[in-house]
């Protein structure tokens, strides 16, 4: 099953190679198939994860390079199942949203499908080598995707960030992060002495003979910063909003929806799993850094006027919650963090898809130029309100559940940071409502009289899929949370064998 998920996009890409450049219809059909197969697979995974058993499931193992201890090892636990599902959803809807791409279609889907493959690879890999392998592989297709099919970030008619700048910055930044992480990984690999890249094997080896705590303290920040760049951790975030803003909508969707989660997922999967002492030492710092993400990101979002920049900064703000959830080192907060990765991914994908939809017709996403689009496109406006509300943490959407869990789980450990986090929700509401107000509400503008709504079921499908997914998880989170918890709890218990609880009276100080 995992192989199917991983290989379907690759095979799709290879099939595309066989097509002529102008066979657009077939190109798209293949892309839809190549992404819907993983979606079905992900649904299967989500429904067939054995919570009682926990751990890695559906494993696939092929020995790869025995001498170095590399194995092609795939497997999912509750956490990665959620993210595979998220990625499958975003990837699938992204293909549908990309129907608006009219130029160099074949190339577009080629890069797109490689991107999809890479991200699936990261979520499915249980081998450090392949983890990194796919991680880097996922970064590179962004370059042409943004560079060719993206758009400049304009402000008042002037180019503020060109797409070339955006894509170069993104690629280099992420690569820089990746190599820092690589140094950490290699150091880790060498210092365990187990000569294996296999994650479960490493876990066993480290359980038997843990690394020296001082070494862990060196290793952990390498991995944290390396993967934190893509998460994006303040102040290393500046590639992300610009990158989001310049990317074509499907790529923004994947980028904000899934790619950023690679970072937080990687932090959970590698440094937290493998370096408990490092986590204990460093995560309190992260918890404070996230506050910067949340509050600062929110305020910067507030002062932006390009819609995609606003959503971009909001993503970096919301990823602050995810990181905060990680940093709390309690099972509940980690559950919340993972759920928020999922929820925020869908929400932000929805937002970017919507912006892409009307940008296509309005040719502007500069907030002062927009207004009253609800008249021409009620469906899009409805979805826009939903996205804004999901982002603001309205109950009924998965984001609320996730944030609530982070707050509940983190309260005992970092009350001050949690208070800031709760305040961040207010900030989110401010700029999100500003977006909704400025874009959809207000009198109909004559300039947009020609625009049209998404009418056919097919056009609406991607938005509906995302909204429904958000609401299903938001209204009935229990099974999902149980799945996540089955993996998150052992992890936390591994890091903090006895949860040192601050005495309640001291907790606030």
């Amino acid at each position: 099953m995992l192989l199917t998920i991983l290989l379907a996009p690759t095979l799709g890409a290879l099939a595309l190679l066989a097509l002529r450049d102008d066979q657009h219809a077939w190109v798209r059909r293949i892309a839809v198939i190549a992404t819907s197969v993983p979606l079905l697979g992900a649904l299967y995974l989500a429904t067939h994860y054995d919570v009682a058993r926990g751990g890695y499931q559906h494993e696939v193992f092929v020995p790869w390079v025995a001498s170095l201890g590399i194995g092609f090892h795939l497997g999912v636990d509750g956490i990665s199942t959620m993210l595979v599902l998220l990625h499958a959803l975003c990837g699938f809807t992204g293909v549908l949203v990309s129907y608006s791409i009219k130029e160099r279609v074949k190339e577009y889907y080629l890069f797109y499908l490689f991107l999809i493959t890479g991200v699936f690879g990261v979520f499915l890999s249980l081998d450090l080598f392949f983890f990194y392998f796919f991680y880097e592989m996922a970064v590179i297709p962004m370059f042409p995707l943004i560079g060719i099919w993206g758009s400049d970030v304009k402000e008042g008619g002037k180019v503020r960030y060109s797409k070339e700048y955006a894509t170069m910055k993104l690629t280099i930044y992420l690569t820089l992060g990746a190599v820092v992480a690589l140094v950490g990984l290699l150091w880790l690999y060498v210092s365990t002495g187990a000569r294996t890249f296999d994650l479960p094997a490493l876990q066993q080896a480290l359980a038997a003979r843990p690394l020296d705590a001082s070494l862990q303290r060196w290793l952990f920040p390498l991995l944290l910063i390396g993967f934190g760049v893509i998460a994006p951790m303040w102040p290393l975030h500046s590639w992300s909003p610009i990158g989001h803003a310049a990317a074509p909508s499907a790529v923004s969707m994947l980028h904000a929806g899934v790619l950023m989660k690679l970072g937080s997922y990687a932090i959970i999967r590698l440094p937290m799993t493998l370096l408990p002492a490092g986590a204990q030492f460093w995560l309190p710092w992260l918890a404070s850094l996230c506050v910067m993400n949340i509050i600062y990101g929110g305020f910067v979002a507030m002062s932006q006027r390009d819609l995609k920049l606003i959503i971009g900064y909001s993503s970096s703000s919301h990823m602050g919650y995810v990181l905060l959830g990680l940093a709390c080192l309690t099972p509940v907060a980690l559950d919340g963090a993972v759920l928020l990765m999922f929820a925020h991914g869908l929400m932000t994908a929805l937002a970017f898809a919507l912006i892409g939809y009307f940008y296509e017709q309005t040719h502007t996403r500069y907030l002062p130029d927009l207004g009253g689009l609800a008249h021409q496109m009620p469906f899009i406006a409805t979805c826009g309100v939903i996205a804004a509300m999901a982002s603001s943490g309205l109950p009924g959407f998965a984001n609320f559940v996730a944030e609530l869990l982070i707050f509940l789980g983190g309260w005992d450990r970092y009350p001050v940071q949690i208070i800031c986090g709760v305040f961040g929700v207010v900030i989110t509401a401010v700029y999100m409502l500003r977006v909704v107000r400025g874009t959809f509400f207000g009198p109909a503008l004559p300039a947009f009289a020609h625009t049209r709504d998404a009418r056919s079921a097919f056009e609406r499908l991607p938005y509906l899929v995302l909204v429904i997914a958000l609401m299903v998880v938001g209204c009935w989170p229990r099974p999902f949370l149980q799945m996540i918890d089955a993996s998150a709890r052992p992890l936390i218990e591994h890091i903090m064998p006895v949860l040192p609880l601050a005495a309640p009276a001291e907790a606030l100080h």
Partner: protein
Amino acid sequence: MVMLAWTILLAPLAAAGLVWLVGIHRKPLASSAAILGLLIAFGCALQLFLAGRSGALILPLETNFAWIALPGLTIQFGVLIDPLSLLMTLVVTGVGSAIFIYATGYMHDDAAYSRFFGVLSLFAFSMLTIVLATNWVQLFMGWELVGFSSYLLIGHWYAKPAAAEAGKKAFIVNRVADFGFMLGILMLWAYSSADPAQRTFNFLQLEHAGLVHGAMPVLIGLLLFCGPVGKSAQFPLHVWLPDAMEGPTPVSALIHAATMVAAGVYLLCRAFWLFEGLPEVMTVIMWVGGVTAFLAAGLALVENDLKRILAYSTLSQLGYMVMALGLGGRTAGMYHLTTHAFFKALLFLAAGSVIHGTHEQDIRKLGGLWHDMRWTSLTFLIGALALCGIPPLSGFFSKEAILTVAFARNPALFSLGVLTAGLTAFYTGRAWFVAFTGKARGHHGHESPPVMLIPLFVLAALSIVGGFLGLPALIASGVHGAAAPHGGAGHAGGLLVMAVSIAVVAIGLGLAWLLYGKQVVLPGQVARALALPTSFVEQRYYIDELYSWYVLHVQQRYIARSCEWVEQRVIIDGLVGGITALTRWLGFTVRLLQTGRVQAYVLVFLVGIVWLLTSALH
């Protein structure tokens, strides 16, 4: 019984789902589904109520399922039926049904008719979620959802910039309040048990077990009180409510008069066990309530928009309720909530009927409606009198109850309350005399259709008889374990209070008659005579200015702009751009080594050799 309880909650949800999924382009289906959903809920609530009365149902009835079940953390979702929630449910569903029906007439020609009913149903569900919540999280969810519905309904006519802005403002102000509220809930939970795994959000469990030792109950209480301050528009977060009048009138009636804004009061009752024991918090609550009541009444004096007058009056009455609760008058507060729901909904609907008939809501441009819209005017009058507290209308009794409590507890607040009562009578009278009596000023209305009038009659009837339904006893029975310490009237000072309040009301009405009915003195002259206070009041005490100054000049200009500056100049240009520029500069510099002269290359070669040889010597 459990099924009935669930039905109350789920019927409006089902209606909302139905409207959104299939009814969005089918007007009749949308409105009938919404009305039916709420009526079913009302029926169920009534049946439960009767069952409770007859003893067939032992209250409280609580039923739950685990919404989130993690080891050490269970969050439930359920239905709690106790006298308090039952009363509130009856108010919400009953008044709501009337307003829903009324809305079919009022919104008849609206393009977004179905959407309107869809959101109304969603609102009903959310409101009932609050009312029937068994725990704080569920309550908070409902709390947020009513805020959302309110946002949508205020902004129903989103094409109007004012409406769109008002919706936004309402949501954000509430969000600010919810910041504190959420923290309060978090802390309440955190201190609910010494054992982290035993913590609970459940109302009854919390009430039963109380907080652990070492908790900071005062802080918790204050934070929790933030919620009502926002939702019930208490000073200083009252600013959203007047603007919210941009929404369609049924919305104002339902949400911004009868139910949602009362949720804050309901919440105070729900957590009364906590506040009760915290005198500091109680003091804050009662003063916030009292001040709100007085200031809002003052605002109403100079307002010319009929709906806004009612909005300020709502503020003022909510202040009353909060004050009552702060004074410990749980029964009185809840009692007033109920009667207020009746007569304020009535007033709004009547005002809506006026607007529907005349398309005008500025009282200065109205006049003589008594002649054109007899039924509407009559019902408005009933509501107005109830608001003023003229016996034997319902408002009289509930207000009496509050003033009695105040009299017993806090003379200062009592006098404030009495003064507010006078002001209330004055502005109500003003609205009545200006808009309904005298001659028409340009607008001739036409009477509304029966579908709008019948709900008016129902509410008018309730406003009249509301004082005789035995509500205080019902409410008091909800106080578990503890005897109702402060029943309604009947204390030693009761008669005195009654006399004072009636007198004040009479003075207020009389003055209004003199100024606006008889026009002995022109109001303009009075305003000129009191220029300073008038302008102060007309500028709404400059609170909105203060906020917009904060938002535009502090938050947007300084905080957000400086963050943006840091982002652009420090992080993007400085940190990232600096490193990039440095790297590029190094690149340009390094290549300058490459002069093209072969001997220079040999020289560099030699430098390397010399270095290597030096190291060989080591």
